[in-house]
């Protein structure tokens, strides 16, 4: 722009010797409304940056001074004073486990329903009505407060036939609290962003791409597996991050459905991994809540340290997925190369 404007005026007339800039090219000639919007846009953007920086810096400052590597590797101890309350290995593992279960359950559901909506849901008034119902149901799930989902989860997992998912209480009732129960409800929280990202990605794949595959004599499933899913992989990655960050951030479900035990408390007896899944535990968010002055723990230093770990977790996750998405976009020519085996 500027190089173009600063070029000497072409033409033989010589009427304008000085380089002229067109009207509107400099802010000085802008209309007032344009200037106002410009100012508002910059202010809003910078303000948000400042808020984000304040959160990260404050939590970082408070957290890092109490953060010791040993905290990450030691179990929490029930103790009255901060010095004896141990680390937060268990909540860390709890968060990771919940995320894993949640995404594992949410991803196939979300991807399949997005595929159904975009690839199979056209044509026929009934099918269109059905797709609309599915989409609004997912919107309802997305809009439900997590505490409601948590309470609903307790109601579900206390049903007798789901007792395998959680540990029983002494009286023979079902507590409905376990990693399985909490993870299943977490998947509901992670599902909407995953679904929306996948659906939008699929809708953005041009029709001629599908037609090209069909014209080669490919079946629908081959088209989906070889052409569509590879091209929406960055969208799915984005959806997964959004889902993960929602799971990590959630506190209500953990407090209600995970039992909120300081340590992982495997279900007595049973298979080695399954008993952890059936047992109770805690996550970083519930740990922060419990140990903050708001909770009962009274170990605010540990809460700050755990909070900074939580924050780093989320930041790293965002960076990682952004990198994956960008890396795949860059080599979009060969996204599917690995898909052929």
């Amino acid at each position, binding site marked *: 722009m500027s190089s173009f404007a600063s070029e000497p005026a072409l033409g033989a007339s010589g009427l304008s010797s000085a380089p002229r800039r067109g009207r509107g090219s400099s802010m000085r000639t802008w209309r007032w409304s344009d200037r106002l919007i410009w100012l508002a846009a910059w202010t809003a953007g910078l303000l948000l940056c400042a808020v984000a920086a304040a959160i990260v810096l404050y939590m970082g400052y408070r957290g890092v001074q109490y953060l010791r590597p040993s905290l990450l590797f030691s179990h929490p101890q029930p103790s009255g004073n901060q010095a004896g309350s141990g680390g937060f290995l268990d909540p860390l593992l709890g968060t990771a486990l919940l995320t894993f279960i949640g995404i594992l359950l949410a991803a196939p559901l979300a991807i399949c329903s997005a595929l159904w909506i975009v690839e199979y849901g056209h044509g026929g008034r009934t099918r269109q009505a059905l797709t609309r119902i599915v989409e609004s149901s997912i919107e309802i799930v997305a809009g439900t407060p997590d505490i409601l989902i948590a309470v609903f989860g307790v109601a579900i997992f206390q049903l007798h036939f789901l007792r395998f998912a959680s540990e029983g209480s002494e009286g023979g009732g079902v507590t409905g609290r376990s990693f399985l129960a909490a993870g299943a409800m977490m998947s509901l929280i992670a599902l909407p962003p995953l679904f929306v990202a996948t659906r939008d990605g699929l809708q953005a794949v041009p029709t001629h791409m599908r037609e090209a595959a069909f014209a080669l*004599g490919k079946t629908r499933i081959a088209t989906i597996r070889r052409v569509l899913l590879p091209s929406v992989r960055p969208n799915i990655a984005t959806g997964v991050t959004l889902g993960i960050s929602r799971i990590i951030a959630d506190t209500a479900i953990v407090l209600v459905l995970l039992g909120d035990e300081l340590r992982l408390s495997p279900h007595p007896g049973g298979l080695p991994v399954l008993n952890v899944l059936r047992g109770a535990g805690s996550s970083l968010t519930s740990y922060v809540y419990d140990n903050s002055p708001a909770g009962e723990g009274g170990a605010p230093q540990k809460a700050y340290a755990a909070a900074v770990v939580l924050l780093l977790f989320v930041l790293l996750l965002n960076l990682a997925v952004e990198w994956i998405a960008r890396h795949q976009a860059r080599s979009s*020519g060969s996204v599917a190369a690995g898909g*052929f085996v």
Partner: protein
Amino acid sequence: MNELEYAPQAPTRGTTPRAHSPRAHITYVDDPLSTSPQAPAEPDPQIVPPVRTIVLDRAPEPVRPPAQREAVRRALEADGPERLRLEDVSVAYSAKTAVRSVSLSIHQGEVLALIGPSGCGKTTLLRTLNRLTELTPSATRSGRIVLDGHDIHDLEDTALRARVAMVFQQPNPFPMSIFDNVAFALREQSRRRPRRPELEPLVIDALRRAGLYDEVKDDLHRPALRLSGGQQQRLCIARAIAPRPEVLLMDEPCSALDPISTGVIEELIHELRRELAVVIVTHNLAQAQRVADKVAFMYLGDLVEYGPAQQVFEDPRAPRTRDYVRGAFG
């Protein structure tokens, strides 16, 4: 043809822009208005291909009596084994008829160009030939399309589309490597997945037949989307001909390309017709003249005229065809 009489400065085909034509870039080998003291030989009434006169706002009536149909069919069969035969094919979207009872036959070794103004049903007809219209839920088809003696309605759509390949208007390579684009067409044809070493010669052969191999042989694993538009279109052709189809459908394959790439692809069509029947939809009359052996002119869903390219362009029998090839409308 006394080209030299009225175009002395341009002895080659089609280089005389006509001032009265709204399409000044399209030129005609032989203009029936300016020449024709020697009338072209009356076509034998026994082998006259179909002609319809069209009166606007009225459904056209066939000029030719149906008794001649068999004779026409035999006459047209002369140049190669018949691959596709269309019998009374009509296609409608909901209530709107897009193609009205078209009968045609398509032979190996010939290029059939479908020409006609926009919205006349050319592309719909083309997409009917590999049943791609079925992807549009509202589309309905009647009549018979016979591929090598089998009604395509009875063939599985995937099997049919491997035998009747298609190249689209917009180059649409998949976001994969060049190799995988072609290999994708070959894989899953068989139950057992062929491995890379088995595929490689087939892929290279297809790329070579599409005239692309020399340009890409250094790196077959480059993303296909980094190729130029013309290369992408040739890649799409390679992809289409890799499974050795019998018919190749091309939907305005050059309309998104520059003249040089267009020339390359037209050369390629000339080469390909030896082993395939080619059906090409084009808006570019000069292109139809350059590549086609047979031309079918469609108007408002009707097949108005079908015949050897030279005849349709130089001595069209339907007035509407004459108007169109002279650039009077469309």
